C-alpha cells in the first residue's frame, strides 16, 4: 500500500472519530437537557396536589425520564447523563478524554433542562423543589454518607449492567432505568442528596432557587462533589476487582 493511500486512510479514520465524538457530545447534551427538565417537572408535579402523583409513580416517572434521555438522542447507548458514570467509564478505559467532551455537554444540558423546567414551573405548577426534600437530616456526616452511597450504587449498577453483563443495547437501558427508579425511591426524599442529578441541582441553585442556602461551603463541596467522587473511586478500585475475581 502506498504512503498516499495510507495517509488517506488515517485521515478518514480521524474524521470518523471526530464525527463520532461530535455526535456523542450532542447526544449527551440533548440527553442531559431531557433528563434534567423531566426530573424536576416530575418532582414539581408530585408536590402539586392537582396531579395526584404518589411516590411510586414519581420514582417510576424519573426512571422513565432516564430511559427517554438515554434512548432518544443517539443509537449507540453511550450516554451517561450523570458525571459520576462518566468518571467510572473514563477510569475503566484509562481514557480521560471522554471527560473532556461529555462533562461540558452534561453541564450545558443540565443548564438548559433547568431553564426549561423553570419556564414551565413559573407558568404552571409554581413549586419550589426544596419542598420535596421530605426528611431533613441534622447529621451532616450521615447525609454525606447517603450521597456517597447513592453515587457508588449508581456507578456500580451501571458497571454491572453495561460492562459485566454486556447489556449495551436497549434491554440494558431498560434495566438501568429500573435500577435508577429504585435508587431514586430509596434516597431522593432525604434533603440535600444530589447524586442522581448533580448538575441539575447545581443549576437549580445557581438560578436562584437555593436548595442549599445557608449551608457552609466546605459541606457543599464535600457532600455534592468530593464524597460522591470518593465513592466512585472506592467502587472502581476496591469493590470492582473483588467482584471480577469472584466471577473468575
Amino acid at each position: 500500500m502506498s504512503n498516499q493511500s495510507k495517509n488517506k486512510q488515517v485521515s478518514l479514520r480521524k474524521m470518523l472519530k471526530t464525527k463520532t465524538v461530535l455526535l456523542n457530545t450532542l447526544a449527551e447534551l440533548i440527553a442531559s437537557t431531557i433528563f434534567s427538565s423531566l426530573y424536576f417537572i416530575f418532582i414539581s408535579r408530585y408536590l402539586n396536589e392537582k396531579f395526584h402523583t404518589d411516590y411510586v409513580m414519581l420514582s417510576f416517572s424519573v426512571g422513565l425520564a432516564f430511559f427517554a434521555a438515554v434512548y432518544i438522542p443517539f443509537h449507540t447507548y453511550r450516554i451517561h447523563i450523570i458525571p459520576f458514570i462518566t468518571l467510572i467509564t473514563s477510569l475503566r478505559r484509562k481514557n480521560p478524554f471522554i471527560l473532556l467532551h461529555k462533562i461540558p455537554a452534561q453541564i450545558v444540558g443540565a443548564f438548559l433542562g433547568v431553564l426549561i423546567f423553570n419556564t414551565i414551573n413559573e407558568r404552571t405548577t409554581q413549586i419550589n423543589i426544596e419542598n420535596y426534600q421530605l426528611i431533613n437530616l441534622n447529621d451532616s456526616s450521615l447525609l454525606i454518607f447517603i450521597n456517597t452511597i447513592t453515587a457508588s450504587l449508581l456507578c456500580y449498577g451501571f458497571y454491572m449492567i453495561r460492562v459485566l453483563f454486556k447489556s449495551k443495547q436497549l434491554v440494558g437501558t431498560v434495566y438501568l432505568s429500573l435500577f435508577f427508579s429504585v435508587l431514586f425511591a430509596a434516597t431522593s426524599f432525604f434533603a440535600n442528596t444530589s447524586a442522581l442529578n448533580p448538575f441539575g441541582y447545581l443549576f437549580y441553585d445557581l438560578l436562584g432557587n437555593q436548595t442549599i442556602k445557608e449551608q457552609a461551603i466546605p459541606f457543599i463541596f464535600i457532600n455534592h462533589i468530593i464524597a460522591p467522587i470518593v465513592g466512585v473511586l472506592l467502587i472502581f478500585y476496591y469493590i470492582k476487582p473483588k467482584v471480577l475475581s469472584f466471577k473468575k
Partner: protein
Amino acid sequence: MSKLSLASQIIGEKRYESLLLFGLQERTFLRLLAAFVVIAAIFYPYPRVAMWIGFMFAGYSAIANDSIQTIGTFISSNSEQKWWKLWLWIGGIFVVTVLYSWLMYDGDVSFQRLTSKGFSESPTEFHFLQIIAPVILLLITRLRMPVSTTFMLLSCFSADASGIIGVTQKSLMGYGLSFVVAMLVWYLLAGVINKLTQGKPHPAWRIAQWIISGWLWSMWITHDAANIAIFLNRSLTLTDFIIFASFIFFGLGILFYLRGDKIQKIITEKSQMVDVRAASVIDLVYAFILFVFKEWSNIPMSTTWIFLGLLGGRELAMQLSKKAETNRSMGGTIKMILRDVGFAALGLVISVALAIAVNVNIQNELKVYLGW
C-alpha cells in the same frame, strides 16, 4: 443462538430475537415515538397546548394507518405517476371536504360525528394516556397490525360506556355488511370483473379510478375526521381550521412522497390490488358502504373494520368462485381473514383498556356492572 438473558427467558428466545431485530430495524422510529411520549408527558396538563399536540399525533397516526385503507390502492396502482400529482388531488379533496363541514356545521369539521352521545363536549383537560393513544396506534401500525383508529382514539374520550358500545355495535354491523356485500359482488360478478381485468387497461380506467378514489377519500373523511378532531374544540375558529387543514394537507404530502407507510404492504399482499381496474371496483364498493353508513346515523364507526370485512369477503368470494383467480389456498384465505379479525379485536381490547384507565365514569360503570 443468542446469549442467555433474563428477557429471553421470560418471553422466549425466538420472540426475544424478533423483538431485538424489530428494535434494531426500527430504532429511529422507536426513538421518535419515545420523543412523542416525552412531549406528551411534559405538556398533557396544559390543555391549550395538549390539544394541539394530541391533534398532531392523531393526525400523523391517522395518515400513517387509517387513510391508507382509502388511498392505499390509489398509491399502489399509480406507482408510475408523479407523487405530487397524487398529493394535490387527494390533499385538495381533503381541504374541500373539511371546509364544507366547517362551513355547514358551524365550525365542526367532523360532519357532526362528534355531536353524538358521549363525544359532544370539547375536552377541557387531558389525561396522559389520551395524548399517547395515537402513539400507541403508531407503534401497532408499525407492527403491521390493522387496528382501528376510531376505537383507539375515540374510546379514550367517551364520557361514558354507552359511547363506546354505540361505536362497537355500528362497527360490527359495518364489518358484517361489508363482508356480505363483498362476497355477493365478487361471487356474482366474478365473471364480469374477470373479463374487465383482462389485458391492458383502457386509459379511461385511470380517470375513473381517480374519480372513485376521490369520492372514497371524501367519504372516509366524513367518518374519520372525527378521530383527529376529537382533541380540538368542537367548533373551530378560522385560525384553528387553517392549522388543522394545513397540517393534514402537508402530512399527506409526506405520505405520497414516501409512497405510503409500512401498512401499505397489507394492500399489496391481497390479490390483484395493484391493477387499476380491480382497485377501482374495491374502492367503489367501499365508498358506497361508507356513504350508506354516513347517511344512516351520526355515531362514529370504525372504517378499518369495514375495510377488513370488505377485503375478507372479497378474498373468500374469489376462492369460492370458479371464474376468479387468486394466489392463495382456501386455508390461507381463512387464515388471513382470521388474522385480520384477530388484530382488529386486539386493537379493540387495547382501546377499551385505555378508555377504562382514562375515564372514571367508565370505571364506575364497570364496577357497578361487575357488582364490586
